[in-house]
């Protein structure tokens, strides 16, 4: 305890030094904001938490609607606010940043959110990513070597250390970036459960993907908060005001729900948090999705305690205790389900957390703060602090109900909205990307908030249930990158669109891998050797993904610092620098491995030709008496699609460019096409087909980072008409199977002559 304190003090000046250092690198940029969600190890020094801002605007007040000035000014305002939020958290940058709008008639909600963070200034310097960053794969291949903390530590100490405040990278990013005696908000701090030297918060919310170096206990899961609030129909300013008044309460409610659900799952951190608020004529919808995990470096979450306000009669008490029992059971069950068994002994060493009892009063409604009550209730939970839910009104009852009505995820399924699920490594090549769209009509015009909430929650839950049911043949599997989009296309209509990828994994080897991971560094070293040998050759594939995401903000940042305000004139300039950077990189790659690249292409070719989507044997002539003839052309190439940046068990050997397409479809014979469902079903199928065809035409065999950015559907059944607009995008790539890849590097073939790949495939 004492030594820990001294280290904390020592770290103080170091921290200020670090801050000064990075500040100089970032401060001069107008917006130190990154839209990226995953970074090379060591890039994130500390993460402060989620920063977000919303603004309600009236679109009819723009004087020149065709000119972007007004809108630019709005966004600039929002970015400034985000920046200042980050500053308040002691951070100088924002990562995992995103902006969105929701428009209904003339009212528009502008939203922005991100994660306040302190970044390693080394990465900020021009070209540094070229030198050191290239061996850090940004592609989130769940490489065994990447997961182990041992490796990360070794590398960071050798490459990035020098001024680093010596926090181990597997926990460094969870350490608070703000001053613990001058905290921006009340939070409960403890010493890091990993290094025991720095302070960490009790929970951490972020919008980024889980860093590869983070140590996680057990598995994660998708956590959603759903909320529906009615509002009166209104026009113009009155409407905007009523929306503005509702927003803070909605954010607060969503936050409370998230926090409760997190505790219920016995987890302590959220990644990939995305809060969407959609505005309709007579209601506001709020949907927050995130992936909950148990970060080993953060303290274990306490349980949830239900407290009745007026302990009057016996039946009421009984009711309370039944709910309490249900909650306790659920927590215990979830612990089993997500395999969360943190080592308990640590607590004794660290001692009790800082007696900062005023925690979370601002954050959680219905939380009882009385310490008397706490000590009274703590009995059942030992040393852990219980999170108290007080049933003081009907709303709270509803909250608890909704907390417990979330259907448990069926056995064999996992789900997350981040790239991959922590704790699952052995993906098989089984892959199914899908989009599901549902539109619900609220038949009852005057619904209460509670009624609406129930409907909306059921809607999301049923949709998830449907997905699990449909994909049951892929068990054991994980739904990754579950992306929900809600909209209120018309009064009384709620539209929910989901895009995700289901990936199956190998249960047998999964358990083996879990064991291997816990066994320590012996194994890791072996794997490290293996991947290091690959490095020389793998530049061809690894550099490109690295160059792509990192190159953009890199050069953009540099230029915006030269030109103080972002104007579109400098855009071309920025692009050209970025292109130059890429070209330079491509050049070195080409010089480095001409031979291998040709071989990989050959391999890729053979892969694509062997994966034809046809039950017919290939190369059949059209002659009549040939064994079997077919009156059609060449068979269709199989094109895989995924919203993730990688395909399990494969290696991307070439990026062929971005695919970004808008489709508009209209029908005047809706009934004949099978109604709205038939219309949209065939449209989405056709969009997929067109995307696949484009990828195939570029010579690719997969589309990664796929996203459906827009899906606007409108119908007029009386006129037998419907319209739909869809915008999709992604990166066309060529991938080869990892098993084939072993045959490529000559370095390896000399040593590991498993020799199955080359002869079989080329």
């Amino acid at each position, binding site marked *: 305890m004492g030594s820990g304190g001294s280290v904390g003090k020592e770290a103080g000046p170091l921290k200020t030094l670090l801050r000064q250092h990075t500040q100089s690198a970032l401060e001069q940029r107008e917006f130190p904001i990154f839209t990226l969600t995953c970074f090379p190890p060591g890039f994130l020094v500390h993460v402060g938490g989620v920063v977000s801002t919303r603004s309600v605007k009236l679109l009819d007040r723009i004087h020149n609607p065709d000119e972007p000035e007004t809108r630019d000014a709005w966004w600039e305002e929002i970015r400034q606010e985000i920046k200042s939020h980050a500053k308040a958290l002691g951070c100088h940058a924002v990562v995992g940043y995103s902006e969105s709008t929701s428009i209904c008639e003339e009212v528009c909600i502008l939203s922005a959110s991100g994660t306040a963070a302190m970044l390693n200034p080394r990465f900020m310097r021009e070209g540094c990513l070229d030198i050191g960053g290239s061996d850090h794969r940004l592609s989130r291949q769940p490489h065994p070597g990447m997961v182990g903390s041992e490796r990360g530590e070794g590398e960071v100490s050798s490459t990035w250390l020098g001024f680093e405040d010596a926090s181990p990278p597997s926990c460094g990013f969870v350490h608070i970036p703000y001053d613990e005696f001058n905290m921006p908000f009340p939070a409960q701090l403890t010493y890091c459960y990993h290094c025991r030297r720095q302070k960490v918060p009790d929970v951490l919310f972020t919008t980024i993907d889980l860093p590869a170096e983070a140590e996680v206990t057990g598995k994660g899961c998708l956590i959603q908060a759903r909320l529906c609030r009615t509002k009166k129909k209104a026009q113009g300013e009155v409407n905007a005001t009523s929306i503005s008044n509702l927003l803070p309460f909605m954010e607060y409610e969503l936050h409370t729900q998230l926090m409760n659900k997190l505790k219920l799952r016995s987890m302590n951190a959220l990644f990939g948090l995305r809060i969407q608020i959609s505005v309709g004529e007579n209601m506001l919808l709020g949907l927050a999705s995130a992936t909950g995990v148990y970060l080993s470096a953060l303290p274990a979450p306490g349980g949830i305690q239900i407290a009745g306000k007026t302990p009057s009669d016996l039946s009421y008490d009984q009711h309370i205790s039944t709910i309490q029992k249900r909650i306790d059971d659920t927590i215990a069950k979830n612990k089993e389900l997500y395999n969360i068994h943190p080592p308990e002994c640590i607590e004794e060493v660290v001692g009790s957390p800082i007696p900062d009892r005023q925690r979370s009063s601002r954050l959680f409604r219905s939380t009882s703060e009385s310490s008397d009550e706490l000590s009274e209730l703590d009995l059942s939970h030992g040393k852990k602090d219980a999170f108290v839910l007080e049933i003081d009104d009907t709303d709270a009852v509803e909250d608890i109900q909704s907390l417990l009505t979330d*259907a448990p995820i*069926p056995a064999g399924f996992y789900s997350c909205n981040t790239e991959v699920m922590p704790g699952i490594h052995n993906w098989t090549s089984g892959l199914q990307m899908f989009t599901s*769209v*549902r539109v619900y009509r609220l038949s009852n015009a005057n619904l209460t908030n509670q009624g609406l909430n129930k409907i909306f929650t059921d809607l999301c839950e049923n949709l998830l249930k*449907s997905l699990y049911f*449909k*994909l049951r043949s892929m068990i054991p599997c994980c739904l990754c990158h579950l992306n929900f989009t809600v909209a209120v296309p018309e009064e009384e209509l709620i539209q929910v669109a989901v895009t995700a990828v289901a990936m199956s994994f190998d249960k047998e080897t999964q358990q083996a891998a879990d064991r291997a991971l816990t066994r320590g560094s012996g194994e890791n070293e072996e794997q490290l050797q293996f991947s290091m040998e690959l490095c020389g050759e793998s530049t061809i594939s690894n550099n490109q993904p690295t160059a792509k995401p990192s190159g953009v903000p890199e050069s953009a940042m540099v230029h915006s610092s030269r030109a103080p305000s972002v104007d579109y004139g400098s855009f071309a300039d920025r692009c050209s620098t970025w292109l130059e950077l890429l070209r330079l990189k491509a050049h070195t790659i080409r010089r480095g491995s001409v031979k291998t690249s040709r071989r990989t292409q050959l391999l890729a070719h053979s892969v694509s030709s062997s994966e034809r989507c046809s039950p017919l044997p290939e190369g059949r002539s059209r002659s009549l008496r040939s064994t079997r003839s077919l009156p059609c052309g*060449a068979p269709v190439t199989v094109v895989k699609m995924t919203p993730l940046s990688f395909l399990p068990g494969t290696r991307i050997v070439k990026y062929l460019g971005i695919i970004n397409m808008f489709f508009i479809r209209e029908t005047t014979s809706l009934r004949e096409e099978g109604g709205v469902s038939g219309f949209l079903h065939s449209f989405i199928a056709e969009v997929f*087909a067109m995307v696949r065809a484009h990828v195939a035409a570029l010579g690719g065999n997969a589309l990664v980072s796929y996203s459906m950015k827009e899906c606007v559907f409108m119908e007029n059944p009386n006129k037998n008409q419907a319209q739909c607009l869809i915008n999709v995008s992604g990166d066309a790539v060529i991938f080869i199977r990892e098993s084939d890849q072993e045959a490529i590097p000559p370095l390896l073939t000399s040593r590991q002559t498993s020799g199955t790949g080359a002869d079989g495939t080329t």
Partner: protein
Amino acid sequence: MSVELDVFVGNTTIMDEEVYQFWLDGYTVNDAVKVRMEGGVLEECEASAEVLRSDTMDQYRTFQMCERLLHSPAKLANQLLFQIPPHRQAMLIERYYTFDGVFVREVLGKKLSKGTKKDLDDVSAKTGVTLKSCRRQFDNFKRVFKVVEELKGPLVENIRQHFLLSDKLARDYAAIVFFANNRFETGKKKLHYLTFQDFAFCAGQLISNWTVGALDNMVEDMDVDLEKEFLQDLKELKILITDKDLLDQHKSLVCTALRGKTKAFNEMEANFKNLSRGLVNIAAKLTNTKDVRDFFIDLVEKFIEPCRSDKWTAGDMRLYLTHYTNSAHILDTFKHQVVWDRYMGVIKSCILKMYHD
């Protein structure tokens, strides 16, 4: 609250074989949901009826969209709209073209015309196969018929190539086409005991031995039309029954060979002339299209029924037919050995297949 729109689209098209079968069998969505619920899929996956309904609707829509592709299966492999793994494609095609034995018995040998299609509701009521399924099966027959009608080359091979069917199914379709083309009578009450597979076997025999294609395999309609010249030659066999000496000689040869080998010997000896007349008369009459149609009914009436009433076993039948065929070779005044063998080879195997103890 009601679901206005509900779709699920996968990059790889998801198809449940069970639901596909319901769709093929002409179940409505509601019926399919009901059956699925009873099937226990709910308990297995903790899903609600609503989920099941949504899933069934999705699948039905997908199948409907696929249906036009299934009409020319080669297109399924070359279309871009649905990404379906090859083995799934094969399954989709095979199941789509699979038919019900009871249904095919009703339309076998009938003209595949609009008139027959109009009567399908009667067939549906009689067989218990839904009208929707009846229509699909009927349309399949008709489609295959239309396509192979204009093609040269072997019938089975053509069907297999154009519809990507398994060998077994292609042979069945060849039989259906053959029967439809020659309009064989199969619906008479006396023929009710025969299954489609009995007929399919006979069709196979006829196709490979009696058609134009048996000699020359590059002629149009080679496998669907019986060879005219051969039918003409069959008239010559009449000598076996018109020539009294030959008939007696034949009888004594057969009886000598059979004596002591079967319990039914007495009946065989007594009926020899009748049976022989029956078979040879069938052969002689085949030049008439009308008599070709009655080929199977004639076989049953003239040969199988008398034998059955005499309680021949299948072994008896085989023994009798073997000696009956072979003995003709020893007859020195009988000169039509080649035609006789070509005729009796098919007759023998057909009768053996059609003779159920």
